[in-house]
């Protein structure tokens, strides 16, 4: 896509922006607040705002606009509430050629891991999950969260150490 000439007001461009950024944006907000409904509402509002201001926003700034709007809304409407963490992270791949004992043990580990991830500080959790679930590079995460790559790496390391401490020895 030629970055300079695309208009956000154009229906096709708008859909492309949606398909490209919506999922990660939604996950990012979800990792912050732990409420999928809330995350989807925030994403929706951000895209509506993008559309209403489409003539004023240059195509290449659309992504940062979306993240800015979503983060602001999260801070305004969600962050001040006492967040009840309801992180539901699903096990994606099931390996079948393992012994039942191993599977059970694996499942227990998974439950434990999910619990400690939910208890991570938000700053560590969002970086860790963007990296592990959304497979984002550190440079991409730094752009999303709005911090330096170095800071992302620190948070990632801190998250792993926290998880390691919480989960105990296996």
């Amino acid at each position: 896509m030629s970055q300079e000439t695309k208009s956000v007001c154009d229906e096709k461009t708008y859909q492309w922006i949606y398909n490209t950024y919506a999922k990660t944006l939604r996950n990012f907000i979800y990792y912050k607040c732990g409420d999928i409904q809330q995350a989807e509402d925030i994403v929706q509002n951000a895209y509506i705002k993008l559309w209403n201001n489409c003539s004023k926003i240059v195509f290449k700034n659309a992504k940062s606009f979306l993240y800015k709007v979503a983060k602001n809304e999260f801070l305004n409407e969600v962050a001040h509430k006492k967040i009840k963490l309801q992180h539901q992270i699903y096990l994606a791949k099931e390996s079948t050629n393992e012994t039942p004992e191993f599977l059970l043990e694996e499942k227990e580990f998974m439950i434990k891991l999910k619990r400690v991830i939910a208890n991570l500080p938000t700053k560590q959790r969002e970086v860790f999950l963007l990296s592990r679930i959304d497979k984002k590079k550190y440079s991409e995460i730094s752009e999303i969260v709005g911090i330096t790559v170095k800071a992302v790496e620190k948070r990632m390391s801190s998250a792993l150490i926290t998880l390691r401490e919480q989960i105990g020895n296996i």
Partner: protein
Amino acid sequence: MENHFLDNTFLARWVAGELTPKELESFKKSKDYATFKRINDTSQMLEAPTYNEQALFNKLKQLRSTHHQAKSRVIKLIPNWTYSVAASVIIIFGIFYFTNNNKHFETNFSEQLAIILPDNSKVELNANSQLDYKSKNWKENRDLILVGEAFFDVEKGSSFKVNTNKGVIEVLGTEFNINVRDDYFEVLCFEGRVKVTSSNNEAILLPGNAIRIVNNNAELWNFEQGKPNWLQEESIFNRTPLSQVIISLENRFKVSFDKSNIDQSKRFTGVFTHKDLKLALKTVFIPMEISYKPNQENTIIILDSIK
């Protein structure tokens, strides 16, 4: 924890596969490696809750179109520039209004009004009177238009002129009273000096001097009170034509008189109170040998000379 965690990006680089072979090898030997590897491996199997991307996009489209419709409708009905035009018009009229401010004061029957002029001069407006002046350039141009009766306490400054339809009163000093009614013109000077100019007369009044013009004849007399009597809730008259006394009564009590049977050119000297109509009528008309009684509808007081 072992020493490689002192480097606070070590684990991040390991996750990203950016460790040097040497670093990786030593890390693999550490006792925490197995746990870290398991955390990393398992967490990569996690997934965020799935969602129907297309359904959400359709919902978004729907919301968007309602937003968009609302927006365009507003623009069509009241274009933004009309607000600025309206605001400009209001501002222009506002400036015009405040810079060319014509002040107008009016009292009704039985009312009195105290007015402070822009230079702190005071005006007491008696009942059924009007006062007009321009607040713009007041310091340079102290001009007022009076209809009725008022007491002035003028601050020092440029000449202070009161225009009436009977003559112009120019202040040389500070306190004076003017009474201008249909056929009557009276000025009392309480302090300082007042210059009175009417069509064929000119006089300078000193404190205690008063002038009245009846039938184009100027009459000068002296008085003693320090403030106009009407400010003390009574009206004092000194050889005043009866017609004028009756007008004062009408203004004060909002009554009407049938004057057809009396001689209004008689002069009255005396006082009437502002508080009690019956008492006022008694004090004015009994010495003048005039009887008074209300008409049948109680709206007009019929006056008749006692023969």
